[in-house]
């Protein structure tokens, strides 16, 4: 059964080498990336985000990313953390 994004959640930071990920409930899947290296790495970031969303079986989510030159492992870690936080109820 697909996991449900129940609330807006974020993870990461705007420090160099990191990224800030904000996820929110949505009908379908949308990915928005802001990065100083968008031209070189924008597609790569979107690909990683799609793979994580698929592997976690998330159905509807909007993902907004502000990238500060994060490596792949950071993108994965921050997105996974934001998604896990969004699966929890507000009170949790």
């Amino acid at each position, binding site marked *: 059964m697909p996991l449900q994004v129940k609330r807006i959640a974020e993870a990461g930071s705007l420090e*160099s080498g990191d990224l800030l990920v904000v996820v929110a409930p949505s009908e379908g899947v949308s990915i928005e990336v802001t990065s100083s290296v968008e031209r070189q790495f924008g597609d790569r970031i979107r690909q990683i985000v799609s793979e994580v969303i698929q592997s976690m079986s998330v159905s509807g989510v909007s993902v907004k990313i502000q990238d500060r030159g994060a*490596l792949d492992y*950071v993108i994965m870690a921050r997105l996974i953390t934001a998604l896990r936080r969004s699966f929890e109820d507000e009170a949790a």
Partner: protein
Amino acid sequence: MRLRRSMLYVPGNSPSMIQNAHIYGADSILLDLEDSVPLEEKDAARELVRMALSYLNFEDVEVTVRINPLDTAFGVDDLHAVALPMLDAVRLPKASCPEDVKRLSDLLTEIEEENGLERGRIHIHPMIETAVGVENAFLIARASERVDAITIGGQDLTADMGVVKTEEGVELLYPRMRVVMAAKAAGIDALDTVYADVNDAEGLKKEALMVKRLGFTGKAAIHPNQIGVINGVFSPSEEEVEEALRIVKASLLASKEGKGVVVVDGKMVDLPVVKRAKRILMLAGVDFDV
């Protein structure tokens, strides 16, 4: 034998520090999930360290992770996340009795089996930072075959003792000596606590020399600029290497000639001295088997 002179603390929620941790010359890196990570970021740091251990290459630097204590809401989850092939050792904070280490060791055995890892491969570095822990140091050092180093945490320990940590460190003299003796008796490494003032290289050197005299084999660093000083202090000096070479050569000659007594510079040398000399040569990377 692993060279373990310096161990660099790295906050577990900082990507830029994690991915550069191994380039500064530290023998070990210590990715921290405990004190350097605020409560609301424990989940993020755990995931970041898990991914770092899965995807980064730290070359031949020893990789350790300080988990949260097992009696907190985070400790067991930390362990499940980081017990990966890249991990060399788990640092266990606030180890107060041998049961703390045994519990961690049993959990590691379970996780190693689940993940198809070689059993017993992940070592444990208990951190002595309570008064009870100091008194139980030897039992803690011997609690599991996974324990190959024991460390002392000065800040929490002095707080537990109800005293202030001072520059001269007289309040830590007994705990340090007790921890060192426990390590020696158990045949493992003894690692000293951090020196907090990252801008005082002289003070760091003084403290490192003092704890080396007590018997510590290495010291933790909280900033890359402390690593050079620590490595320098815990590496054998030229004089030490020369003397060790004379002792080991004399010992090899004596055994070749069937003599039971080793004599160096006219003085009789006992077996423990030969053993220490061999250790110095190993630390210096000198091949003595000639």
